[in-house]
């Protein structure tokens, strides 16, 4: 039962952990580091509830091994707000009621933030296709898409 020692950076903090070679990054985040914001909806990369970014790239943390986090920079939903200041997406999601049960919300916020960093002025179609890997069963996506579009518009105005 030899474990691997991994050094990584999560939401800007240096983190060290030991993990089984078979453990996914999602397992490590949730069960070893207590970062339960990322959710396991499927474990097969189909639902996006476990979305995180690794060196700025959007990934399903259930499809990546914990050991692969070595030397990387990981960002999770827990790192989106800065202190007491919510990210504009977080504010808009509450304002628009872009969530009902909220289980998909962490993954969708991580994915939407990643989109707006790459494309500050997305079309509705671009938002829909970017978020096509994040399943939501409650909302029919309507209010989610509107929240993301409006956040993008507001962030463009502010910048």
């Amino acid at each position, binding site marked *: 039962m030899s474990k691997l020692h991994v050094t990584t950076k999560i939401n800007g903090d240096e983190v060290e952990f030991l993990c089984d070679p078979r453990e996914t990054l999602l397992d490590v985040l949730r069960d070893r580091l207590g970062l*339960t914001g990322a959710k396991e909806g499927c474990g097969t990369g189909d639902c996006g509830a476990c979305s995180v970014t690794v060196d700025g790239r959007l990934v399903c943390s259930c499809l990546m091994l914990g050991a692969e986090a070595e030397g990387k920079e990981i960002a999770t939903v827990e790192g989106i707000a800065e202190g007491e200041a919510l990210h504009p997406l977080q504010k808009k999601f509450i304002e628009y009621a872009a969530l009902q049960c909220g289980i998909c919300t962490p993954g969708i916020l991580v994915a939407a933030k990643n989109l707006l960093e790459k494309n500050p002025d997305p079309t509705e179609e671009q938002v829909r296709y970017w*978020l096509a*890997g994040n*399943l939501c*069963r*409650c909302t029919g996506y309507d209010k989610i898409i509107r929240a993301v579009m409006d956040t993008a518009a507001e962030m463009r105005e502010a910048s």
Partner: protein
Amino acid sequence: MALDSSKTTGFKYVGTRPDRPDGLDKVTGRARFGADATAPGMLFAAIKRSPHAHARILRIDATKALAMEGVKAVVTRADFAEGLTGENWNILENVMAGDTALYDGHAVAAVAATTALAARDAIKAIEVDYEILPHVTDVDKAMAPDAPVIRAGAADASVPEGLHPNVVRYHESGHGDVEAGFAEADLVIEDHFVTEATHQGYIEPHACLGTLGTDGKGELWCCTQGHWNVQKVCAALLGLETSQLRVTASEIGGGFGGKTAVFIEPVALALSRKANRPVKLVMTRAEVFKATGPTSSTSMDVKIGMKKDGTITAAQGTFRLQGGAFPGAPCEMTAMCAFAPYDLKHVKQVGYDVMANRPKQAAYRAPGSPMAAFAVESVIDELCKKLDLDPIDTRLKNASREGTRASFGPTWPRIGLVETLEAAKAHPHYSAPLEPGQGRGISCGFWFNHGGETSVSLALSEDGTAQIAVGTPDIGGSRASMALMASEVLGIPYEDIRVIIADTASLGYNEISHGSRVTYASGLATIKAAEDAVQKLCARAAAKWGIPEDAVYWEDGFAKPSGPNAGDFAPLPIAEITATMGATGGPISGHFEATPEGAGVSFATHIVDAEVDRETGSTKVVRYTVVQDAGKAVHPTYVEGQFQGGAAQGIGWALNEEYIYGEDGRLQNAGFLDYRIPVASDLPMIDTVIVEVPNPGHPFGVRGVGETSICPPLAAIANAVSAAAGVRMRQLPMRPSRILEALDSAADG
């Protein structure tokens, strides 16, 4: 004199759209769902499941598993209560197989170990010998004379003689003489319809964390729509006293009916009792598909007669529902919902509950109604086409109204179907031009809505704010709705109220969050609890002023003398009364416990435009409008969300989603890749119109909105696709291959 704050207009808080109280937790990742809890010394569990559709269990040997590093306990059926009867026996049989595995994915044993990986490794080491038995998964085949018998003696007294033992319940209702009615018609259409089983598809797999000692005392944390039900069922299955098991409902990551049932909680508790440590048990997605709540699959025949002017002369339906290896398919509700929107002189509906080697069906948003509407509304659409009638005008002509005798018996009180049809007709969507290749579909839908046992407790704090304990898990923003209704009665700001979902030890019994009952029943209970507190506040003011209690009334958070004769006193704010409540008679709280029975039925009308690609057979929903009677929309944004969510699930059911079984009786698509629920790029924006025809059974007119929204979509989309493709679609889902087949056969025919 009991306080009565009933009203249908003049609201200050109800009908506004404040931020939900759990919003911050849910956008920051700190909301705690089923799988997010831990406990000191916690073990992880995994379940061993049958790979066979139907097999006798000859031997289970866990010797090798128990010898593995980190494995602390194994349980089988022998670790649960004996001698159960009725539904408790059915639930236990489903939670852990007895002598026979009844479907692919049926639990046969479970393991608890120090890590999740060790638990998963250990279940592979449990040896099970099976004798494979003949199986059946299709509803029509399960009713055929030569079908294998799932379980002899499972039928109840409702089943007529001569039917196969797999038919376990039978329903028949209606009135008039349908044959005489059909004879009056200018056109009669009879058709056969089929729908496949679908899954609720909540994104959060079932999860729980249980602790149970040999002293019979336990604690359970789980994602559920009804934790008092979990408490009751777990106590029965484990031989405990109900009150000794405290159950706390986590935040719930979707349920839609699928989390009204109990699957893994008794297993975690049994393992905990054996290992003497807390046990966490989380399903994989494949387990969710294989062993939890799909809907029934159906086979249906509907016959409707119509005059040239659109008057329906008679209607008849036969609805066969496959409900898995246990009784319980909602054959009555399917039959009762089928013709509910229409005022019919002659109507007859028949329902069959049929067992097959599939997982025990569970409720899914208005159980049975969407399938019935698919069959009925498709036939009405075809009649309108053949008789060249407008689909909305025809439905208006036959619509159920106040005073109509419903197809299943009662006489309708005030209902809002006509209002939804009129709003749909007036909506710009209905008159918008269609592009080539597109078709428009209309459908009505009906759901009963429900009351149920309900307890709410409200406590005032010294600063004049309020905390409310409700017992119905918040599955769609109900904490916001409860706070709004309490604000309305107490006259204090929404932000001054904190609503929590209490655990089973902290509040009286509450039925499950189901039947669209939460805003209705917990809402009514919240209003009554707030009225109870207001009455006590008025009494304190009266005592202070030295005037009779009935000379004080409550307005906008102040006690006021009721008129010049009562005396000249300055209005007393709530915070001044609560600041001294300890000295004026003690803490002020409000309570309500009852089973409200004034739930108001609701109707909806949906309009859909669909575009069919004749080359690939794929369908795109290009425009969608939901019109539904909410009674009163307490938080309109969340009402819209329910409308949109129901429509989206209906789109998935109509176009993509289905349980696919192989010849071997095994589920072929137990994952989100192959069981494809709608993704963001599949859908258009979903327009909503909230109609408000107050329910006389609720102080503010609330009807409940969660379920009716999924009743019309299957039919509305089928009607749109049939119009676009030029061929009647009689089977769901209308996946591309099925549409191409229909186009081919239409071309051949």
